[in-house]
């Protein structure tokens, strides 16, 4: 059973999904081994050219139990102030961190974060988050599933020795209840305020205990002033959020942040809300950010993305909806002062297209998303050089006809990069700002 899980993890690492058939898995694994070794031979002879490769190939070459970024569940990435790349991922109930000095061509041996196994979630909307502070402290958050009843805890760990070892994980939701706390986001301001924001069901549970209805869940957050040594008490941002979508975070001023999340409006309209959060628990500028009119009593599992625009209080945002007003992936620039979106465009209305990610670098706005044409999944890219007023035609960065993760954009002081994982290509880290 153990071998089966390890091999199947290797072959199907994404979305927590595994191969259905143990025998088929083992057979494919055995058949693939000599082929993969042959394919790997040139790479082994010229290690400096090591590139993204499938987990199948990595494990054929290095052993079936190899922990690698290419086999990792739902990786996410960040740069430190020296432009060293750090990637966090989940493997076999542990969060791991791996580093790259050459922008993702080669990676260090992964370091285990949680010594005790826990059910760390890894899927498109739920993944370990990683940030490296300017003083080198490595900060991580993730959601650990505690039952099959949508319960979980928001976990935090950090390394103060440059990623060589990690502190035992702590739970940052402070209600002590075995209920739903999931879909964490992590953000560090330039001034060193560390925010953790998540979807929380404590108000739902309290309402149910009083036999009162409570649509959806709530958004909660906490702040650390000392890079995670301690956290302030949890603060509620909003009641009645959607239960199952990632939360987008962007800086607001020096110490504050703006967040964008899927919120329930009226009876069952699941559009988006925006708010500004401060370290001392002040929630302001809370307003509706998208009016798509998506009336749905269901789990979309489609969270938004947001980055600051060049004017203070303005944000570029992209999101998915299947509403009657807007359907498909959309982009808009949102102004907090007027509480109104501008330049709304439909990015991709193809069913199956989703999961946009935005980044800005050197005056250019980048937007990637996952398309689908019925047979294969292209990662699509558009650029805007005028703050989202006009856009380039979509171009395909990379395609797969196998399972793949959401695409994410990562920025350093040197450029914008695609961070993306697929069964076919393994972990791909690719600069987008060089052409």
């Amino acid at each position: 059973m153990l071998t089966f899980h390890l091999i199947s993890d290797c072959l199907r690492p994404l979305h927590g999904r595994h191969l259905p058939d143990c025998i088929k898995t083992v057979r494919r694994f055995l058949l693939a081994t000599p082929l993969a070794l042959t394919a790997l031979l040139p790479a082994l002879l010229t290690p400096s050219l090591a590139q993204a490769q499938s987990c199948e190939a990595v494990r054929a070459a290095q052993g079936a139990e190899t922990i690698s970024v290419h086999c990792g569940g739902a990786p996410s990435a960040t740069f430190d102030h020296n432009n060293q790349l750090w990637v966090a991922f989940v493997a076999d109930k542990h969060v791991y961190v791996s580093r790259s000095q050459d922008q993702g061509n080669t990676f260090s041996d992964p370091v285990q974060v949680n010594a005790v196994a826990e059910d760390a979630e890894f899927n498109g909307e739920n993944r370990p988050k990683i940030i490296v502070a300017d003083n080198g402290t490595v900060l991580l958050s993730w959601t650990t599933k505690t039952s099959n009843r949508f319960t979980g805890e928001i976990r935090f760990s950090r390394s103060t020795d440059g990623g060589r070892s990690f502190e035992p994980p702590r739970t940052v939701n402070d209600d002590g209840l075995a209920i739903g706390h999931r879909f964490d986001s992590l953000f560090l301001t330039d001034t060193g305020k560390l925010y953790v924001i998540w979807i929380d069901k404590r108000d739902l549970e309290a309402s149910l205990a009083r036999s009162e209805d409570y649509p959806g869940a709530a958004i909660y957050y906490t702040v650390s002033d000392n890079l995670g040594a301690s956290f302030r008490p949890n603060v509620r941002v909003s009641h009645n959020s959607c239960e199952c979508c990632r939360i987008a975070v962007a800086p607001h001023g020096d110490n504050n942040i703006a967040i964008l999340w899927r919120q329930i409006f009226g009876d069952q309209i699941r559009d988006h809300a925006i708010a500004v959060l401060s370290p001392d628990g002040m929630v302001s500028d809370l307003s509706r950010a998208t009016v798509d009119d998506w009336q749905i009593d269901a789990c979309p599992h489609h969270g938004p993305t947001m980055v600051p625009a060049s004017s203070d209080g303005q944000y570029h945002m992209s999101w998915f909806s299947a509403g009657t007003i807007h359907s498909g992936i959309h982009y808009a620039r949102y102004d907090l002062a007027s509480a109104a979106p501008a330049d709304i465009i439909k990015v991709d209305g193809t069913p199956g297209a989703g999961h946009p990610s935005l980044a800005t670098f050197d005056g250019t706005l980048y937007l990637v998303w996952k398309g689908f044409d019925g047979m294969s999944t292209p990662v699509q890219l558009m650029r805007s050089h005028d703050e989202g007023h006009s856009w380039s035609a979509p171009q395909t960065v990379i395609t797969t006809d196998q399972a793949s993760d959401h695409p994410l954009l990562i920025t350093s002081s040197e450029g914008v990069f695609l961070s993306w994982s697929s069964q076919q290509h393994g972990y791909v880290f690719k600069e987008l700002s060089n052409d």
Partner: protein
Amino acid sequence: MINKRLGHALLSAVLILGVADIALADNASADKIQDFGPQTFAQLKTQFAGKAFVVSLWSVDCAPCRVELDMLGQMKKAAPDFPLVVISTDSIEKREDAADILDEYQLADEITWMFADSFVERLRFSIDPGWYGELPRSYFYDAEHNMMSHSGILTIEKFKELFPY
């Protein structure tokens, strides 16, 4: 004294048998879950040629889906021959989790399906190219296989409106 011991032994035996029975039932319900691959939906439509049927898609991670499963379980109990296709969009690796939930909603004795290919976009496309993946999702096919779709929790009223057969 002897009688008391005998009583305890009998009680234990009954309890063990009971537990064994539950364990067997669990395995049996997991066995009722079949692989859903890229060709499965076309095969199901062929099986239902000339007949109306209903498709309900759910996942173990979807809270609103439990409300729909509850309704479907009760419908199935009232009308066991009802032409219902229940598909979980979770990987079939989660078979045991799905079986536990189906059992809770009295659907464990039904043949149901689970996604058995990690390229879920293609499986979703095989069911409906216009589906964005939101759950719960249901489809209503008439005898000519004209299709209507519904996203979100299916109430009994909505069900009767979309499937008046």
